[in-house]
């Protein structure tokens, strides 16, 4: 419950932090922290235009996408406070629920019959397929490290002992930051700033969404960022009491937002054709973590 409230709170200003960082980095003052949320609120009040090609799938997909992320957030714990849903193997359901939302968002893009949106759908399907193994191997290594298979017990028993285990924590954070960037179609993989359809992934999939649905999709992106931020924060919180962990949570989230902003400001987008290689690197980093864990546990023969 704690984590749900915290994530919902973070989702209100997270994008604001990113945009503010980017503005400052490019020498502008930038909009207020809550401006992105105000934009979404305005969209929620608007009417919509639907393409004549679309079917019911196009109308329900944003809701399912939003629900899938919300459902996934239910599973994220905060320190030693479990999420609403917690059972052994919950991270498998976490990944698969998110995949359900993704499935629907991809087919809703294909529903419009637009050439641009098909392009985005194709890329989204490929990239999310490539990023999946990294997530599972990382969680597998953490399960191996701690001997547990649910988010809450992994994070509460995760404690660093030797130098190597600190390195593992750092690598895991790195992997999660990049997973978050890829899943949200941000900078090194996709550039949401350029409004050129040919180079976009997620943005191009929602070209035909408008009004309430568009607002929902944009808000879901914020939620997703906050969710990954919450998972990252769990690497640092451990079993600390709430009065320390909650400020720490926000510090991590804001730090994460600033990091995203800085990456976006100082990095160029990769060529589309190079993205698969880049994403596969994450899997190999996760493998490194796995072998590191084996080494720490002394199971390396």
């Amino acid at each position, binding site marked *: 419950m704690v984590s749900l409230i915290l994530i919902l709170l973070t989702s209100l200003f997270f994008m604001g932090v990113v945009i503010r960082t980017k503005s400052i980095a490019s020498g502008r003052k930038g909009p207020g922290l809550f401006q992105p949320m105000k934009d979404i609120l305005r969209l929620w009040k608007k009417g919509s235009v639907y393409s004549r090609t679309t079917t019911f799938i196009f109308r329900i997909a944003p809701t399912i996408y939003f629900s899938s992320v919300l459902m996934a957030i239910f599973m994220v714990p905060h320190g030693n406070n479990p999420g609403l849903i917690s059972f052994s193997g919950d991270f498998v359901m976490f990944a698969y629920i998110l995949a359900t939302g993704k499935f629907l968002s991809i087919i809703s893009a294909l529903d419009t*019959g637009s*050439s641009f949106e098909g392009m985005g759908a194709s890329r989204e399907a*490929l990239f999310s397929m490539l990023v999946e193994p990294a997530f599972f191997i990382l969680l597998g290594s953490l399960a191996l490290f701690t001997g547990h298979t649910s988010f809450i017990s992994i994070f509460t028993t995760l404690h660093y002992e030797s130098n190597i285990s600190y390195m593992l924590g750092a690598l895991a954070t790195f992997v999660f930051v990049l997973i978050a960037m890829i899943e949200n179609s941000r900078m090194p993989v996709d550039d949401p700033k350029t409004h050129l359809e040919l180079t976009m992934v997620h943005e191009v999939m929602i070209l035909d969404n408008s009004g309430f649905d568009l607002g929902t999709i944009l808000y879901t992106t914020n939620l997703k960022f906050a969710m990954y931020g919450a998972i990252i924060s769990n690497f640092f919180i451990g079993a600390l009491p709430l009065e320390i962990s909650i400020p720490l949570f926000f510090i991590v989230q804001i730090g994460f937002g600033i990091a995203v902003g800085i990456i976006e400001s100082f990095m160029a987008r990769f060529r589309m*054709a190079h993205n698969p290689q880049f994403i596969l690197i994450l899997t190999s980093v996760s493998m490194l973590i796995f072998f590191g864990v084996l080494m720490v546990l002394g199971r390396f023969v």
Partner: protein
Amino acid sequence: MEKLFVEIFNLLAIAAIFSFPFLKTKGRGILTLGVISIQVVISSIVALTVFAKGEAQYFYPGSWITGEIPIRIDSLSAWFMLIISFTFLTGAWYGFQYLKKYKNQSANIALHAIAFILVYTALIDICIIQNGFAFLVIWEIMALSSFIVIIFEHYKTDTLKAGINFLIQSHVCILFLTLAFMWVKIKTGSFDFLAITAYTSSQPAVTGIGLFLMFFIGFAIKAGFVPFHTWLPLAHPAAPAHISGIMSGVIIKIGIYGMLRMLLLIKTDMTTIGYFIVTISVITGVYGVMLAIVQHNLKKLLAYHSIENIGIIGIGIGLGCLGVGYGIPVLIICGFGGALLHTLNHSLFKSLLFYSAGNVYQAIHTMDIESMGGLLKRMPRSGYLFLIGSLAICGLPPFNGFVSEFFIYTGLFSALLSNHFLFTLFILFAIFGLVLIGGLALMCFTKAFGIVFLGTPRKKFDEGMVEEKPMKIFPMYLVAMAIVLIGILPLIFMPSIQQIVQLYQPGSAAFTSGQLKSILDILSSVGWYSLGFIVLVATLYYIRHLITAKREVAADSTWGCGYTGDAAKMQYTASSFVRTYRKLAGPFLMIKKEKREACGLYPGHINQVTHPHDKVETWFIEKPLLSIRKLLSRFVFLQNGNIQAYILYGLIFIGLVILLPMIIDNISGFFYLLNRL
């Protein structure tokens, strides 16, 4: 009682077939439907009694060739009987409607119906007979009658070719099974399945592994493990839709049944077998889905997905074997349990997908994905049912595919925590494989559903709604309901699965009730959370509806960056959707591309066509066949069309047959003489 029921079951089939000459086409159809329905009821009663009361067995005296024929119905047989029966029930109902379009081909339909009844009867009998010889005879009946049901449209060359391919490969399968049964018969003098146990437990482990490999190859051809899968992608598109559904749903599963049966009987080093099965299954799963993505024929795509799902089932089976080998109870229940549940689940969603594909085929008379599009508006019921099937086959919650995959994942992650270095690495490999399969399946089915049912048509077909008769859709609803039901209540079949898993459990690896309960609790909570997800979506959609009900809604054309002409041709096609993937996976695939580019001042018609090929098929089937053919072409002079020459060959053959034993006798007499000297 079981004996009586099984006899009635078989007699019904025979009686139905003999009454065929006295009926007209419509009567034959109704008779087939009626007989299959009654048979389904009977076999389900038998299966359920077995689950309730435990194993049943009785004996037929048999003849001097076969020896005593034992009929043993244990929970494993009962499980497969239930799966087969349900799919045949929906398949018969759907097929009855499907074949109405062909009602002027009276003789063809009659043959089809006879073979259909035979396939079903033979499949059920295979599950219960435990005598090697009788097993092979029934297996042969099953293979031949499935050949006949596949080549329903035998006037098409492709269909006949695919059918003959199937026929040959299923006989290679029978060859291996025959060799394996003969091996045991020669060593023990009995065809009884129990002789296998007696024989392998008295021999060193290597013998058992050798015998298992022999059975494995035989059953793997039927089940479609890579590299023995090549008949599947050819036979499925050739068969009519209800047969494809049944074939993918249950006929290939009989191979899985055989494997599970042999794992029960053969006593050997289960660890080695486990490693072997998991390795080949991961390869099967990944290879199957990798090729599925690039297919342009909807049914072929689904056929490759059957291979993928066989891989997932195999991972479960292998995991269970590893559990038996290492004595880890959690692995046994998660591995075998997951495999059994996935067998059921796959039979459900795959038959649903094939039935929907059949409706598409009857609406537009093609299976080429590239020419489809926008079908959801014309045939909404089939479309949404296909969507349910797609979500389920990708293993996404809240449908049944997720439950069985989650079951296997639970096993894998608990195996990861073991102390063996190599074992841990190996499990990581399996997890990697399963995750990759999941991701690729998602890509494949977004393509299949998105391109076929969404967007606008890529070629001109008749406009207007396609008639979807309620009687044709009804069996599909039944399957869809089962899919959702298992997704939400995964535990409804758990007692049965538990009974089967107990068969595999050696005394040393019995699990405590606490362990079992924790796994069951997790599974049931997964089901409830899936239901929660459905409720969440429904609530949020209702809220959205309340908010947006009074808003202004306009309809317009799709945003085309200023272009307002006909955008149908500008849509992403099936091959462009997977283009990046195709480039990435290039080394594993074999894709021939034909391209005609625009050139000159007035460029003419441009097009690009891709033809995906199967590399394994080229290496294992086509190339060896080609070299055999080259060798044999040297002897083509023997086939000169001269009748006198043929009579001479016959005489030479008969002479040799008679003379050979005599010559051998003489030679051995000669050697005997030499020895005496």
